[in-house]
């Protein structure tokens, strides 16, 4: 029990520093994250980034190509999917300061091996 509390305290401690430090910085984000928060937080530091924010550097068409699936499963491409096309805002599935589940999990059992939670 005591052990558990310690772990909890530790995690809580970490959470406090999350606002400045991403949980697990993706390699390609090392350049920007932690240096200039406004690069992503275009709506202000205490606000979530806008839906366009990630698109300053990432191109939806490229992402869709990278995650393309074969003809039979083509609509399971998270970046170009059946329900929302290419319009699903990045923040639905990706977070830098908190782990997130792929949205498809709400209803489907698909596997996304590369998805960083």
């Amino acid at each position: 029990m005591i052990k558990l509390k310690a772990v909890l305290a530790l995690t809580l401690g970490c959470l406090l520093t999350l606002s400045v430090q991403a949980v697990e910085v993706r390699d390609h984000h090392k350049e920007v994250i932690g240096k200039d928060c406004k690069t992503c937080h275009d709506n202000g530091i205490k606000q979530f980034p806008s839906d366009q924010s990630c698109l300053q550097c990432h191109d939806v068409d490229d992402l869709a190509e990278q995650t393309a699936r074969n003809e039979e499963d083509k609509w399971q491409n998270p970046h170009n999917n059946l329900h929302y096309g290419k319009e699903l805002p990045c923040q639905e599935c990706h977070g830098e300061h908190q782990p997130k589940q792929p949205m498809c999990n709400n209803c489907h059992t698909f596997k996304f091996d590369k998805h960083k939670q």
Partner: protein
Amino acid sequence: MKDANLLGRRNFIKGMGAAAGVAIAAPAMAISEKADGVKWDKEVEVLIIGSGFAGLAAAIEASRKGAKDVHIFEKMSYFGGNSAINGGLFAAPGTPMQKQEGVKDSVDRMVADQMKSGRGVADEALLRHVAEHAVEALQMTMDAGSEFHPYLQQLGGHSVARTYQTTVSCGAGITQPLLNECRKLGVHTHNRAKFEGFLVGDKGEIVGVKMRENYHFGEDQPGKISHIRAKRGVIMATGGFAQNINLRMAQDPTLTAEVGCTNAPGATGEGMYEMFRLGAIPVHLAHIQSGPWASPDEGGFGYVSNYTIYNFPHSLAIHRLTGKRFMNEIADRKTRADAELSCRDEKGEALPPILITSYKDSKKHPNTKKVIKYNVGWKFDTIEELAKHFEVPLKPLKAQIEEYNSYVKSGDDKQFGKNMTKAKDKFIEAPFTVVRLWPKVHYCQGGVQITTKAEVKDSFTGQPISGLYAAGEVCGGIHGVSRLGSCSIPECMVMGMTAARSVMQA
């Protein structure tokens, strides 16, 4: 606890997650106010809230009727609501495909089927209005680019085959083209914009709304309130409340967090409750429908639902304890959901029944491959294997299949009186495909009362509340106790179009 075990840890946790999300998202502050002295941040011509079938159809029709400045506001980050994850099944009477297939149908017949499943309390005038305009709505989807399977389906409770389905077997095959059409017509679409209350004029008329912009659903970020004036009127197309566990339990205490749900997370109902606060008439709120075609092996609607909807007419549903059928596989939804819920083991614990289909017949549906591939359904080469896997007593099961096959031959189901037309020549033979069945909360029949012009009626005067229109699942009473499958798309689209016509005439 029973249901928790049944649904498995994964789904149970998911249910709890959704509940927690709603708790954070639910604002205590939403309330309508007098518009006196309000500083308007924006003015629009037609203001639509919600981006499902009803909202999109309203926006297109308003534009076609000459509106120049139409705006859709959607609280989620993505557009489409339940409509974008819907099964894409669309019922209409007197369609070109019915003529082609020689199916005799009419507005009267479709209304009669719906009145029957509504169990005497459906709104005949509204059902008739929708059935009369359903082909027009179907045409709107086709004009926007929707494509449909080249066959009709006969769904549970329908006396004839009258249901189209998009080629992608999903409502997105309609919402995506409609959203594109909206943009082509110059409709303004705003995401992360949450309706929080009406602004009411001197005579009680609706003059605008309070909108929370930069809103992040389920997250702790306040966003910002703006006051938007609607010159012609406000159309509420905010859908149902199946995801709001508190509200649905207030109506039906059995629908706890442990019961699965097929709806999109945004189906939380605050738009509807705000209309009640204004004076709208609540109808049939406790009639909340569960889908009898859902599977406990995946979340939401998943892949199994459309698979079973297609396959029920030529399949048998088996109680695993007895090895026998326990329902008419194409009875209406309530009849089947109740029958499934009664499938329990000796201790009374839930025991999801199974649906057995011949692979030769099931494979015609595009989902069959996926159901097997994603482990939410199974294929068996022999009846022995199947029986062993689900612990069904073999002898009675074999006898039941034999008996059922005799009904396929004679066209007369002596056990449950199932209409065997669609089962003709489809004998139950190996290899088999099998899925597990268990109902999920699916559709809210209740909502605000409207007229056939999509006007929202006031509880005290019985008159329409000026400037306020509603369309789609947020409205109540139309279907009565139980809605027939594939009858929501025509309703949402027709009433969305109707609301737009009324707004443009007002």
